[in-house]
């Protein structure tokens, strides 16, 4: 169970989000300002932060949290939609969601962040695969064999898992995994994706796990 520290001064919205997230199985601590933050911060897995707060504003609180603990993901939840605000927020926060939001979207984003920070030692079940996300062990559920991946294949799959459900362009993948800027026409990525598919797909000619999104890139969808 994940512990969410939620800071929101609007009572109605605070109650609603707290109730909804609790119903979905999260443990939510809701504060109306950042005053008693220190008490609860140690126990939190993720922070959901409003911007307009009495006293210290959300930006300052968020920066302070990040300064003390870099590994604590922060999602800004604000009715301030101006680009400047988003930019300022994303300077330190991991995500910025604007109000009015749909609770499903909030949860989806929280899950992405939790996965990215590997707070989540869930076992992912991707079609016929079982993936232990923390140590990145990939097991074929049909045969119960562990699939051995080479270095680059491992990082490639890890990158997909961290950006689950997101479409990734060739450039993003190459730069994320190889750490170098992508040169137009480079075939390295395609070759590695083919190898990876040969290992993890049931039928590499009809990939089900690593989807090709024509004209854009690839996606691993849960």
């Amino acid at each position: 169970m994940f512990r969410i520290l939620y800071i929101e001064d609007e009572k109605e919205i605070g109650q609603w989000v707290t109730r909804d997230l609790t119903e979905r199985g999260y443990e939510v601590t809701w504060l109306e300002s950042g005053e008693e933050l220190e008490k609860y911060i140690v126990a939190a897995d993720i922070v959901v932060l409003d911007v307009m707060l009495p006293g210290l504003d959300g930006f300052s609180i968020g920066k302070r949290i990040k300064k003390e603990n870099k590994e604590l993901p922060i999602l800004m939840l604000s009715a301030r939609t101006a680009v400047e605000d988003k930019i300022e927020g994303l300077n330190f926060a991991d995500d910025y969601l604007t109000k009015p939001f749909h609770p499903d979207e909030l949860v989806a984003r929280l899950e992405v962040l939790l996965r990215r920070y590997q707070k989540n030692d869930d076992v992912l079940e991707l079609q016929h695969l079982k993936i232990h996300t923390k140590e990145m062990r990939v097991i074929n559920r049909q045969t119960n064999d562990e699939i051995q991946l080479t270095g680059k294949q491992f990082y490639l799959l890890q990158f997909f898992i961290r950006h689950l459900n997101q479409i990734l362009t060739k450039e993003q993948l190459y730069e994320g995994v190889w750490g170098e800027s992508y040169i137009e026409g480079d075939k390295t990525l395609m070759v590695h994706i083919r190898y990876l598919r040969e290992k993890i797909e049931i039928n590499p000619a009809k990939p089900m796990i690593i989807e090709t999104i024509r004209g854009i890139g690839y996606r691993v969808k849960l």
Partner: protein
Amino acid sequence: MKFLRPFFFLRSLLAKYMLIILIAMSITQVAYFVIALFALEITKTGQDESLNEVNQESNVEERWHDEAKHIQNFTDETITQHFESWKQRYPKAAMFWISEDGTLRSKVNVQEQLPSTWTPSFTTKFIKERYGGNPFTVIAFVGEDETNGFIVLEIPRDVFNPPLRNIYEQYGSLVFLGVIVIVLFFICISFLFFRGIRKRLLKLQDAMEIRDVDGLPIEIHVKKKDEIGQLEQTFNHMVVELRESKHRERKEEQLRRQLIANLSHDLRTPLTKIRAQAYSISKENLSEEGKQAIQAMETSIVNIDGLIENLMSYTLLMASTYIFEPKEINVVRFAREQMTTWYPVFEKEGFDIDIELQAFDDNMWLIDPLWLGRVFDNIFQNVLRHANSGKYLGVKTESTAHYDAFIIKDYGKGMKNESNAKGAGIGLSIVDLMVKGMELEWDITSSESGTIIKIKKQKDLSK
């Protein structure tokens, strides 16, 4: 400033210039004065002599006659002796003695060719030639009577010249040279003076053209307190004012942005509350009608959200306070990344999505990514809302000889049939403002079978 004026005047260029002119004038005056004094002095000293000038000539004549009369013993020796004594007094003088019978007897200092025997006709010719001529010639009979012949004295006329004329003849070219030197000297001084001014003006011009990082001119270091210095000071003053006004403008802009941001925040908070309530209601056991009502509420909330966003952007764009930070980015890559967020949305709606983004000759466009992102967002938003019936979205690139373009295509019912598409107007107005703001072009072709939007960048044909 005013009480400084008298001091200021002394430092002014005008004062300097006037000083130069005054010196020039006074030097000519002084020169005149000195020359005049000099001339006066010389004429004064020379006057005694030159006053005697006529006298001198007549004196010489008289004395010559007188002394000739008193010569005793008319031998060659005595005459030569007499001549020698005159030669000491007038070194340039030439003298000779013609005896009674017309023979040239003794001569001193004679340069010209003289006949040894003087006929009466030659004598007459000689006297005629010399009368009033040069050299000054005096002919005197020797002794009391006319039986001992005559002695002739020749003195060049310039011996009797006034002294000033001699000086002029001697130093004339020197004086002329002096005048030229003085004139040249003043031309030089004037040249240096104006060159100095010109140099400083050019430097000032250069300094005025230097821009700070914020695009404002930089203050100039004022060295001298003359007119140019004053100009520099005024310029600095202007820079300060400009900076202040820019600062004020920025502050106003910021206030305005702040106000609009706050307003949008204040509008969104109740909207979030409505959504919260709607969501809570949707969790209840609802009738089909109730579910539909909640669905309609949801749609309205999303629409209002979009409208608030658009209204805010439009207001800022119209007031030119929407932050614009263009940079060179790879637009094809950018468009592809934009599509990664929109793809799932269209996918969910069951659209047939056709994406074909080919590299342009030059993928680097100077644009603000946030703006271009917004342009794409607004267009896709419109496709989603108003062309949903076509269930098709095409995003392609097009390169012609004249332009590179992104093409966004749908098979909706076209713009004219958008009965409930009133919100599309402001969204497309924002697209228009932003596209033009980034110096791109766009056109829209809409028919009942679909809409095609092209965002074009004209190729620089000069390259």
